[in-house]
């Protein structure tokens, strides 16, 4: 397979997928060198950088997404207004899980100064934004919560490392 052929295939795969595709998936599917896949991706990213559609690194993979600068037009063309939105309480809960994972429901409730967060957790679980990842080895073996890949996708993060630290936010730890 020549370089241009590879590029076409990868472009078409990424284009037709409805969620991010990882380098690993492409490598194992096409049985090619990781290097050449990475090169193609870099090239594609570059080629699309000034178009209405961008190639974005997200949730550990790559995905074509419309460029943010034409957002208003696209949104009003499709007559789709509000997208994913969260209550402040849900965002706080997600922030706690994202920054401190794995955490228990009790820890989240204590940090937020409320008695119970079970309703919010159920909601986030339903949306596949968080998952139960094991149990804490204490009495009652409470569930430990972590964020999911869907969380990364929803918030446009490539990995949890994209989240700025408190220090970067100008807050003393």
């Amino acid at each position: 397979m020549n370089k241009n052929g590879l590029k076409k295939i990868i472009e078409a795969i990424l284009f037709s997928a409805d969620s991010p595709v990882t380098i690993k998936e492409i490598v194992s599917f096409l049985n090619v060198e990781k290097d050449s896949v990475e090169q193609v991706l870099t090239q594609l990213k570059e080629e699309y950088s000034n178009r209405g559609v961008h190639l974005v690194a997200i949730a550990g993979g790559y995905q074509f997404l419309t460029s943010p600068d034409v957002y208003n037009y696209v949104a009003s063309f499709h007559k789709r207004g509000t997208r994913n939105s969260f209550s402040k309480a849900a965002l706080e809960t997600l922030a706690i899980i994202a920054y401190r994972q794995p955490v228990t429901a009790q820890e989240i409730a204590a940090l937020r100064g409320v008695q119970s967060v079970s309703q919010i957790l159920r909601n986030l679980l339903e949306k596949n934004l968080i998952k139960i990842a094991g149990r804490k080895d204490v009495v009652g073996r409470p569930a430990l919560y972590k964020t999911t890949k869907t969380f990364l996708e929803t918030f446009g993060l490539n990995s949890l490392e994209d989240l700025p630290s408190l220090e970067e936010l100008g807050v003393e730890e």
Partner: protein
Amino acid sequence: MDNFNSIEIELDNFTGPLDLLLQLLKKHKLEISDVSISEITEKYSEILKKMQERKLEVAGDYFVMASTLMLMKAKSLIPREKEAFEEMKEELLFKLEEYEKITRQAEVLSVFLDKRNRMWRRGFKEDFALKDKGVFVQENGGYVLGNLYSLLIKRLKAIEPEIVKRARYTMKQVVSHIYEVFKDKKKVRFYEIVKGRDKSFIVFSFSSVLELIKESVLKGVQTSTFSEIILIKSRNYSYKNRDKVISRYE
């Protein structure tokens, strides 16, 4: 006392008592100290009152904080409780600081979300895969299953609590009932066996009948696919020996 109408604090927009307290402190540029604790307590309670007047559902969490503040206020007035007051203050400050960090982190998420929400993924997907679109199991497979299971249980509980718990009937009871029905009859409609019974009885009867047909105790006749099942005594039916058959069921 402040005129609450001028407060831009949204009464129904707190995520919890820490949020309310933090907004209050910021709004009035107050710090938690023995001098200001009385004022803070007053303002906090006043907002709670407003919330109740507006018939907002105020969670118990808010009252726990109110009583904490009142206790601190009381301690601040008694010289020998000074140390206890300081301890409580430290603890509350720590909680507030931690909470403030979380609000900053939540803001970060909100910024990321905003940016992501400005990008659209492709809406159209050529149908390369199955026509019948299945549920794709992602990382949350366990939860997907758990959720489905809990829905099943809820659904069943609504119509038939017994199946969920331990069934009210045993196969033994049901089979024995079937033997009784056939005692003086040669032919019985399935409906007669389960007449007036609940769903779990029907389920058990149906499977018992299938077993009995297999054992040639009964014969089943159906004129068409969904028509009524007519049951006829078969060669292995013997009312006298029924206990032997029944005992084989759990």
